[in-house]
């Protein structure tokens, strides 16, 4: 008997000349959140599509809840829930119609399908929008409907595709709350993400993949040990006090403060107590701040540490501007996404 809810060994997949997966192993224990961290094109989606029986691997094997994804695909499909870009709702149908259809396809009676739909729509705060076509939904509502649709059959294994990409910080917190609740009720969640913050907030274990290979597998804590701790960033309200703030940070952390961008100083810190100490000292020195945040390294920095090059980049240590879709043209330098949206939950 297996002890894993999700287990994949040596998955390989090519699309024509392109090698999407070059031997990926994934293991997730029941009732845990497993994050697959990687840039676009790393093989995250291909891995999940194989696990969800949507495509077949060229080599390797995978089991969900002990069922083989090829030989027992039917059983696997009765076990899993799929969201986001893996499996979409119908935009022409209303939220309620989408949910009822899935209930009917899962052999619920008409009444049960309706009740289950209403229950989930309420849980995801979509009751008011239930009778509107899904194409009129906002991005966040659409994300919630996708997730609700995947939960109709009470799946024990749930695949979440970048569940918070493009959501504002409050909505992200809500989504994280949902994931925690699902796991609290016994489900296993595999989520893909581009944010170490998200993996850190939710995951029990993280698999980092790049160009179809696993480059790290660890707990978030272990991963942070490897890639370095958090960064404390201060933006003084008065730009003239920048040097004072830098000196202060240096005293607190024992490391030399750097300026990642205009008017901002940052230092690496080892533990959370650095934040309270910095707040106290800033107050004592009379330095007002516009921004004071503690955040984890970005995906870019994780990759830089793990493989010595920017995510998704073929050259070692180049500018990785295309690694993160949210990281647009404006960032220019590699530090641009230090202040990307993912840092928000730890901002004070």
């Amino acid at each position, binding site marked *: 008997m297996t002890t894993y809810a999700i287990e994949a060994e040596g998955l390989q997949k090519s699309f024509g000349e392109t090698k999407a997966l070059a031997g990926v192993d994934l293991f997730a224990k029941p009732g845990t959140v497993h994050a697959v961290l990687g840039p676009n094109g790393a093989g995250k989606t291909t891995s999940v599509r194989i696990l969800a029986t949507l495509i077949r691997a060229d080599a390797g094997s995978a089991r969900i809840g002990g069922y083989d994804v090829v030989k027992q695909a039917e059983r696997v499909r009765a076990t899993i829930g799929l969201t986001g870009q893996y499996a979409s709702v119908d935009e022409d149908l209303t939220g309620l119609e989408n949910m009822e259809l899935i209930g009917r396809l899962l052999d619920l009676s008409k009444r049960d399908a309706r009740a289950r739909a209403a229950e989930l729509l309420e*849980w995801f705060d979509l009751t008011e929008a239930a009778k509107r076509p899904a194409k009129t939904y906002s991005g966040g509502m659409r994300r919630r409907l996708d997730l609700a649709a995947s939960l109709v059959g009470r799946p024990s294994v749930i695949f979440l595709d970048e569940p918070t990409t493009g959501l504002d910080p409050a909505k992200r917190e809500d989504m994280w709350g949902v994931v925690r609740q699902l796991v609290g009720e016994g489900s296993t969640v595999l989520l893909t993400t581009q944010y170490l913050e998200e993996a850190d907030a939710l995951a029990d274990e993280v698999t980092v993949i790049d160009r179809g290979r696993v480059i790290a597998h660890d707990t978030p804590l272990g991963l942070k040990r490897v890639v370095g701790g958090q960064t404390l960033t201060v933006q003084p309200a008065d730009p003239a006090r920048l040097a004072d703030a830098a000196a202060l940070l240096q005293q607190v952390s024992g490391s030399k403060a750097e300026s990642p961008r205009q008017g901002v100083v940052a230092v690496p810190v080892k533990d959370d107590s650095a934040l309270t100490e910095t707040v106290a000292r800033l107050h004592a020195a009379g330095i007002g701040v516009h921004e004071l945040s503690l955040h984890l390294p970005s995906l870019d920095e994780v990759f830089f540490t793990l493989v010595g090059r920017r995510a998704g980049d073929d050259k070692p240590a180049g500018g990785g501007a295309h690694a993160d879709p949210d990281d647009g043209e404006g960032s220019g330098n590699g530090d641009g996404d230090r202040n990307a949206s993912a840092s928000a939950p730890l901002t004070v």
Partner: protein
Amino acid sequence: MTTATTTANPLAGAAGAGKPFTLIRHSAALAKRSLLKTMRTPEALIDVTLQPVIFLLLFTYVFGGAIAGSQSAYLRYLLPGILAQTIAMSATAIGVNMNTDISKGVFDRFRSLPIARSAPLVGAVLADFVRYALVAVITLGVGYAMGFRIATDPLRAGAGLLVAATFALALSWVSVFIGMLARTPGAVQGFMFLLVLPLSFGSSTFVQANTLPGWLQAFVNVNPITHLAGLSRSLFLGGPVAGHFFWTAGWIIGLTAVFMPLALRAYGRKV
């Protein structure tokens, strides 16, 4: 908030996707979805609703006198053909719809559920039969208002509709096959249009074949739509059935024999 439990329920949907009743129930649910979509985007129905009506009105009142000497005589000739042809040609939409579902990821949602692999396909076909019925009702209704009367009996008229629907099913395989191969719904649409246009106008639906130049007659005489329209005319108005029937049956068998395996193989690769 906490009522929505998500604990594992191994029974949810796992039960017998192989059983025929389950397949029919799933397919019916998917057919209902397809019809809901149609109702929500009525413009998608134009080809099966407005088009036959416009053709009927246009050809009868504008060309009828010139082609057949009188409008009422031409309406008798035209209507059974238009009806059969519209039903047959509305089968081309199935490939477009399936391609759209695939490109939007809706298909993947269905594939991730424990339902029979064939359920989305069967559901789409079931929904099409409802559309054929709609075509029949609209075309016959408008025709009746214009003065068309069935000269045989309801049984034979019904048989005419059934043959048209069967031919449509055969043509669906072509559409599904193209729908699985093409990259975009637009490409499927474009290809099917190229197929439909010469078949419908290069037939005896609008004018009798003996009025055409010899080389075109050669095409018209083998065109399945010619025989489908001819059969329909005989079943609605009376006349010899056998010749047109064998041609139509031959085409139905031929199209199905060639394109059903191709379509199912392409579909199987996507499913």
